[in-house]
């Protein structure tokens, strides 16, 4: 070995390599292998020059990729031989270069690592109970970045100068905080304070935390400055507190998410291995979990000791205790909850009324860990905003905008630089399914199969996100919200400015939805760049194709709410054939009318009435069903959802075709069936009717041990007068009208039958394309049962099936699809 010549190499690492402890790791590895040289962050990624013998260099390159710290992701490692200099005697971290176009290499915000949690609960550690500790492997990232590359002076930590102790760690290559950009301690870092509603400080530091916990126990609503902005916290076991939060937020029914530890999660919900893995991702997302039955009906759970309880017993023998496996923090509290409370406490029925799922998240920061451990039971943790608005990021803004909602404000002096909502996922078909992509996942880029021209995509109108093309990567912004709201629209405008500023890309064109009235399109028009309009459902399909690196040809099933169709109509149940030549709709659904337009989206009873009205006129319907159903043709259950005046007026509108635009949306069909079964005549929040239909069908599946029976009626394929094949839901509906549900069991069976009939219709229509590959996309595939049934039926019919997993199937993924679709229209 000693005879091998001294060589020098330049290695360039791209991917998620900054702010994840890459440079300290490189430094330690080089020193271990006796290499000289340096490592630096550059706008192009991490650059290393290493000098030593050939074998050591080879080992260095291999271990670099094999042993990189867990949050890191190396997409590309290129090596270039250089002439050895013999000038250096050691290996150093050299300051960042900041001269070229920056790269998207800031990682998402990371929940605390096991090492930091151990310090947090160790009374002997100088960071014991310090809510802002972090290291190279964890801590705030995108939420605090001002510009790139990711160095302390370009983050919200810039104002916190390192104390001598922290500096020693920062400069010691052997320390795990070597070059940790966000490191700090009680002596030099951010401090906590508890404010009253006037902004007057009631307590500071640990006292603030303890007082907040005490007040939460008394039923107070606390606004917490979290990782990506404010959250509203309340005792999840306190009905009055949760009710109060609903009243103050004007949010009557939409489920609240819970902050819980793993033990609480497992006690409240059935949690699969995949779901545990999702909960434990460094993003600490909200995961939709199925409640245990006893939880739904509210009976007291009794059983063997839970994991946490066992841990507590052992912990009591060993002092404070942290299980790296569960990530649960166990801290002694001066004022513990009485026996039988805490982790074993019931969840107030107001948390998620009438739904069998709970959205749970594990603590995303040390502060959340401390709060939860001190409080000792699950906490409601919902976004800190007034309905429809973006979440507050600044404490003074929160005082104003959350006035009348929060009693207290648990704040600190580290800025949140952009709002990042909590991400929401569920497991479906054994894979993660993203419903809302924000904190913890943004700005991780989406790697692409081929490079994009300089493009910026402005997304849709609701659940808006925007996306930036960066060569072979796309950067999809965090969930921004519904653009009806003035502040949300401003956030969208800000994100369109910010992404190119932070990450470069120099966009020359804007990809927009084809709908003329989307606020995102209006923002795009104001930016003065040429627009490329992408049809709504093509964008849905292309988002999934981009995520999976899927090349045409394929068939996309875009089952969605409403999007503007390419014939000017309202679409949302489309079969799009996408190939090298372009795309073409080869099948659709029989249109359903929307009495009152948008109003019918808010009131599923209206689409239900239209469905009944139009089904009754189906040729082949018996005499009693034919013609105008009048007041008597409407099933009693649905009739009860209207006053006589309303019913007469809506029937007149249907008769005269007055403001009853037709749409081929599967989402609206879900609404109609949900209302027909009496599950949800009027939505209290977006998607409620569909969720309740999924829940009812789930109840059928969960209570039926044997194989699922075939649906009692089907959704056949018929041709309309233009020859376009359409899935015809009317026979299924007429069957329901003939055999109406009389009890919950009937409702569950019919809800399941509807899901199954739709899934059976999928392969029948898919065969028309004569292509082996099928993509499922659109908001309907947020529905786990529908997704799983469709995947199963299509696979059984021999298709290769793809569906969105890390990109939302709903409009939150449109911007990515717009980029991917528009690249064909835009010059490189």
């Amino acid at each position, binding site marked *: 070995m000693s005879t091998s010549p001294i060589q020098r190499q330049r290695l360039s690492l791209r991917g998620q390599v900054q702010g994840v402890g890459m440079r300290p790791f490189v430094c330690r590895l080089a020193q271990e292998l006796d290499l000289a040289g340096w490592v630096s962050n550059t706008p192009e990624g991490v650059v290393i020059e290493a000098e030593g013998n050939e074998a050591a260099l080879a080992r260095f390159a291999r271990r670099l990729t094999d042993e990189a710290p867990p949050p890191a992701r190396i997409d590309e490692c290129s090596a270039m031989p250089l002439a050895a200099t013999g000038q250096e005697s050691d290996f150093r971290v050299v300051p960042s270069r900041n001269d070229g176009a920056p790269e998207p290499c800031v990682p998402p915000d990371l929940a605390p690592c096991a090492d930091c949690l151990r310090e947090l609960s160790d009374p002997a550690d100088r960071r014991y109970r310090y809510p802002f500790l972090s290291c190279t492997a964890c801590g705030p990232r995108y939420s605090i970045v001002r510009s790139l590359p990711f160095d302390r002076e370009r983050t919200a930590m810039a104002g916190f100068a390192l104390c001598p102790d922290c500096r020693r760690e920062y400069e010691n290559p052997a320390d795990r905080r070597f070059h940790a950009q966000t490191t700090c301690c009680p002596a030099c870092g951010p401090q906590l304070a508890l404010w009253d509603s006037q902004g007057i400080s009631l307590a500071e530091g640990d006292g603030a935390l303890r007082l907040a916990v005490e007040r939460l126990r008394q039923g107070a609503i606390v606004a917490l400055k979290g990782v990506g902005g404010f959250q509203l916290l309340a005792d999840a076991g306190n009905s009055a507190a949760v009710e109060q939060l609903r009243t103050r937020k004007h949010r009557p029914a939409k489920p609240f998410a819970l902050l819980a530890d793993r033990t609480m999660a497992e006690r409240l919900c059935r949690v699969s291995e995949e779901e545990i893995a999702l909960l434990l991702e460094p993003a600490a997302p909200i995961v939709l979990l199925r409640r245990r039955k006893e939880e739904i009906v509210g009976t007291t759970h009794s059983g063997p000791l839970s994991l946490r309880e066992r841990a507590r017993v052992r912990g009591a023998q060993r002092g404070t205790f942290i299980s790296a496996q569960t990530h649960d923090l166990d801290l002694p509290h001066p004022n513990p909850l009485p026996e039988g409370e805490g982790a074993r406490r019931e969840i107030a029925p107001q948390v998620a009324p009438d739904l069998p799922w709970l959205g749970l998240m594990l603590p995303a920061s040390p502060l959340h860990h401390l709060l939860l451990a001190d409080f000792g039971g699950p906490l409601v943790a919902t976004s800190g905003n007034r309905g429809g608005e973006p979440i507050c990021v600044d404490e003074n803004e929160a005082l104003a905008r959350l006035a009348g909602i929060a009693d207290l404000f648990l704040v600190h002096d580290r800025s949140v630089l952009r709002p990042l909502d909590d991400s929401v996922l569920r497991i479906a078909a054994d894979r993660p399914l993203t419903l809302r992509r924000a904190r913890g996942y943004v700005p991780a880029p989406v790697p692409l199969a081929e490079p994009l021209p300089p493009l910026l995509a402005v997304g849709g109108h*609701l659940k808006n996100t925007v996306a930036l093309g960066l060569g072979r990567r796309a950067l999809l912004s965090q969930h921004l919200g519904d653009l009806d709201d003035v502040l949300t629209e401003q956030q969208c405008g800000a994100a369109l400015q910010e992404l190119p500023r932070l990450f470069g890309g120099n966009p020359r064109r804007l990809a927009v939805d084809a709908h003329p009235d989307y606020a995102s399109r209006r923002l795009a028009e104001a930016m003065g760049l040429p627009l490329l309009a992408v049809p709504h459902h093509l964008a849905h399909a292309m988002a999934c194709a981009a995520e999976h690196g899927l090349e045409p040809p394929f068939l996309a099933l875009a089952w969605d709410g409403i999007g503007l169709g390419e014939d000017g109509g309202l679409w949302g149940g489309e079969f799009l054939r996408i190939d090298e030549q372009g795309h073409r709709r080869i099948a659709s659904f029989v249109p359903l009318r929307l009495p009152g337009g*948008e109003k019918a989206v808010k009131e599923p009873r209206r689409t239900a009435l239209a469905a009944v009205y139009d089904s009754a006129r189906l040729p082949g319907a018996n005499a009693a069903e034919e013609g105008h159903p009048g007041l008597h043709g409407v099933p009693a259950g649905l009739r009860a959802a209207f006053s006589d*005046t309303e019913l*007469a007026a809506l029937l007149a509108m249907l008769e005269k075709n*007055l*403001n009853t*635009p037709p749409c081929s949306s599967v989402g609206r069909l879900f609404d109609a069936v949900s209302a027909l079964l009496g599950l949800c005549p009027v939505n209290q929040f977006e998607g409620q009717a569909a969720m309740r239909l999924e829940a009812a069908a789930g109840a059928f599946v969960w209570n039926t041990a044997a194989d699922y029976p075939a649906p009692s009626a089907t959704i056949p394929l018929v041709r309309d007068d233009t020859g376009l094949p359409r899935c015809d839901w009317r026979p299924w509906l007429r069957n329901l009208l003939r055999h109406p549900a009389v009890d919950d069991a009937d409702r569950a069976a019919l809800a399941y039958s509807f899901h199954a009939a739709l899934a059976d219709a999928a392969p029948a229509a898919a065969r028309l394309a004569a292509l082996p590959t099928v993509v499922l996309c659109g908001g309907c595939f947020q529905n786990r049962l529908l997704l799983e049934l469709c995947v199963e039926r299509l696979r059984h019919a021999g298709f290769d099936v793809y569906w969105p997993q890390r990109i939302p199937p709903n409009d939150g993924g449109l911007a990515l699809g717009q980029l991917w679709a528009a690249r064909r229209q835009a010059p490189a």
Partner: protein
Amino acid sequence: MAHGGGGRLMQQLLELLVRPALDNPWLEQRHDSAVLDCGGTRLAFTTDAYVVKPLQFPGGDIGKLAACGTLNDLAMSGAKPLFLSAALVIEEGFPFDTLRTVLDSLNAAVKAAGAAVVTGDTKVVENGKGDGLYITTSGIGLVEHGLSIGPAAIRPGDAVLVSGDIGRHGVAILSARESLGFATTVESDCADLSGLVGELIAAGIEIRCLRDLTRGGLASAVLELARDAKLDMELIEGAVPVCEEVRAACEILGYDPLYVANEGRMVLFVPQEQAEATLGLLRGHPLGRDAARIGSVIQAGAGRVSLRNAYGGQRILDLLSGEQLPRIC
């Protein structure tokens, strides 16, 4: 037909085709009527074509509409109406009785305003080539005040008022046309506002801008003014007067009353400190009984108009494309 709804497509038609073709400084006043200096005398001049189905509706007919529409356009410049012309395009076979009734109501409205129809024209087109009757009226009015009323005079801080409850005309027409069996008691608000405007000017109100509400409703009128004046504005949703029948009808039909047509209502911009006095005067007049302050002009900007709801949230108001296309996904 999507170009006729008073929405964005109509705006585009005007901005891209009509305005450039006819470009001149008077058109650039961007107002309902042009104010022309004729040797020291200021005259307001306007023209409008009227198409409505049905020709007779609760609260009026096409004759009254054709009179009031043009009288109102003159009034929006603060002019006293003097002379009108009327051109009729009649479909062959149109009943004489109806024609006489319509002309009577046209004349009655013009006379009541203290003006006269002094010239006209009549054309008959083949059966099937017109919807019974079209009327085009033009009007000349005298501007006696020294104010410059128009979008350019609006200032940040100005109060935004509306002269009465909104949406009656659109609902009355729809109810009559479709014989819906509800909202049958709603009458069109079709009325001549020139007398009311005259009273405000006589009382010394420093009117900044007036606009009568027509197709596209209150929202479209305010949005156009905001855009032309390059000012951002804020309306308070709960402050906009809507009568119960109109509200209920819109609720069922799925229409937003802010976008429903009116023919006898106007939006007024006055200095903040004169808002109360203006409201007092409006409410003392039969056509302004339900007048209300509905918002404010905020600041110079891109002409954005937001609507503040009861919970403090703010929604963006926007000109819609021809029809109200659902945007919910």
